[in-house]
């Protein structure tokens, strides 16, 4: 089930030497474009991280200065910490809810309508999701705070309080992504053959036992892939922060990508911003590799 599986062994049969005359194959120009918009910027990104560059002049090579500065930058460490907090909250809730939805759907219904409804939040943009929740969670007249006040608690400044900002943003994105993640998990569930459950129930296993003893272990490879996708995506949270808190209050929600954006585009320190994004890239690559290793994603217990 790993992505790499799909590279096929070369099939000798379809090798037709010198196919007819001047037939230029399609796709080659495309690869050139891939070079222009993926490979070239990728390399340039590394280069910029070694320069001082304010967008107006030309990049000025300064070696590893950006990185030494970065490791002493309190805001960088803060951004890293805040991002990790976000990722943890986001991923834990999102994964648990997604698995719950997927298993419920799997056991209860195959209805496309229900799957569609569950997917709906994913189809609207992050910006819209952020705005709707910004409104629902408004301190003065938001419905949620209205409810909290009605049952006798103090209102919560969800976006305005340093302790609440990150959990709130994380949960908004859980709302937007849980349905999508659930459908990915659901696709994985459908690959578990029914006879496994049949055998288990013949042996007197309850649904609850079947879930822990069969579903979860057999779902592991899928779950690993889903986690790699959601965790790497989660590290790059930006839209919701930009629309709601803009990093605040104070530095409470200044996540990595928002910090990179501010450094590069508000403060014009492009070299420094590039160094930050190199760090983010290294973190993401490492996290993805560790996850795949730990969860042994390539192997399926079904095989």
């Amino acid at each position: 089930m790993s992505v790499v599986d799909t590279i096929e062994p070369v099939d000798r049969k379809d090798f037709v030497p010198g196919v007819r005359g001047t037939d230029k194959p399609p796709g080659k120009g495309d690869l050139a474009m891939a070079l222009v918009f993926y490979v070239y910027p990728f390399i340039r990104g590394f280069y910029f991280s070694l320069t001082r560059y304010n967008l107006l002049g030309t990049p000025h090579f300064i070696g590893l200065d950006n990185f030494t500065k970065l490791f002493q930058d309190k805001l960088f460490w803060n951004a890293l910490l805040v991002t990790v907090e976000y990722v943890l909250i986001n991923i834990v809730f999102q994964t648990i809810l997604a698995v719950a939805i997927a298993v419920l759907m799997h056991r209860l219904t195959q209805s496309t309508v229900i799957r569609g409804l569950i997917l709906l939040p994913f189809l609207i943009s992050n910006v819209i999701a952020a705005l709707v929740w910004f409104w629902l969670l408004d301190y003065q007249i938001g419905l949620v705070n209205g409810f909290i006040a009605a049952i006798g608690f103090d209102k919560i400044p969800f976006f305005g309080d340093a302790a609440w900002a990150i959990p709130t943003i994380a949960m908004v994105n859980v709302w937007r992504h849980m349905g999508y993640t659930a459908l990915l998990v659901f696709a994985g569930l459908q690959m578990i053959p029914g006879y496994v459950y049949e055998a288990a129930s013949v042996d007197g296993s309850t649904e609850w036992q079947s879930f822990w003893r069969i579903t979860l272990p057999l779902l592991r490879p899928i779950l690993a892939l889903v986690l790699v996708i959601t965790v790497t995506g989660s590290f790059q949270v930006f839209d919701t922060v930009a629309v709601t808190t803009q990093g605040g209050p104070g530095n409470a929600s200044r996540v990595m990508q928002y910090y990179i954006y501010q450094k590069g585009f508000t403060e014009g320190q492009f070299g420094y911003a590039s160094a930050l994004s190199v760090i983010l890239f290294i973190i993401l690559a490492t996290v993805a590799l560790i996850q795949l290793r730990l969860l042994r994603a390539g192997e399926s217990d079904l095989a």
Partner: protein
Amino acid sequence: MATTTAPSRSAGVADTPVKTGGKINAGRVAAWAAMIILILITLFPFYWMIRTAFSTSKSLFSDPNSLLPVDFTWGAFKRVFGLATPAEAQAEGGSGAAVNFWLFLRNSIVYATLSTAGQVFFSALAAYAFARLRWPGRDKVFFLFLTALMIPPIFVMLPNFILIKNLGLINTFPGLILPYFFMTPFAIFFLRQFFLGINKEIEEAAKLDGAGHWLIFFRIILPMSWAPIITLFILTFINQWNDYFWPLLVGANDKVRVLTVALGVFKSQTPQGSPDWAGLMAAVLVAAIPILILFFAFAKKIVNSIGFSGVK
């Protein structure tokens, strides 16, 4: 691996719940209850958008918790579409400032449609090259593409921004569209899977009749894979429509500003005090409508396409 074909029915027993008396049924009732609660949480914010959009902004303060629109009015939508006079708008709690909603809507349509069309077409070409043509280093290049799937977008966006800036394309549609126009690794990966599954015999017959690669691509491959191509088109369109970061960097100017960026500004434009919530929710609803239409028209396709046909 491409497993959109995941057998939903052959999963037979898993689908039919085991019935062993009343205890299981109680469990099923609880399960349905949980499911319904989750669906309600999913859908409620959508209802709240509608409820707020039909309310009068000023009156929201007097009755914030009413589940029905407060002081029902079409005013918010009028403000969004620029049909309300400033005086009318202010009377209902709007800012009275002109919002170029039609322009932003047009920009979103141009941006999403062109970048999607280009991306799907060129990705199809590249996918064909990866699936069918033999050329030195093909599998290595493909592996490179898969790796590119893992690169955080921001890492490429900073240098791409410089590139677009050096080309003098900031605040232009070409600048917005170019980096997306040719391909994304995901689209290539997605289509290649389908192309690999197409029977080669037809192509070989065509080759014998003298057809070249272009002819085969347009007359055989494309017609045979219209279903995955439409699916990809819809998914990409939704993605592009919802895109925020890149348009924020490159398209800040009104002339090319898309809806997502405009909505962000719309919120922060509000001076002291409370935003025009009704107007904002009406704008949000209208901004979401094209996607919702697309969704209701192709719900089945979209829902079924989410599996492991492409890792995204």
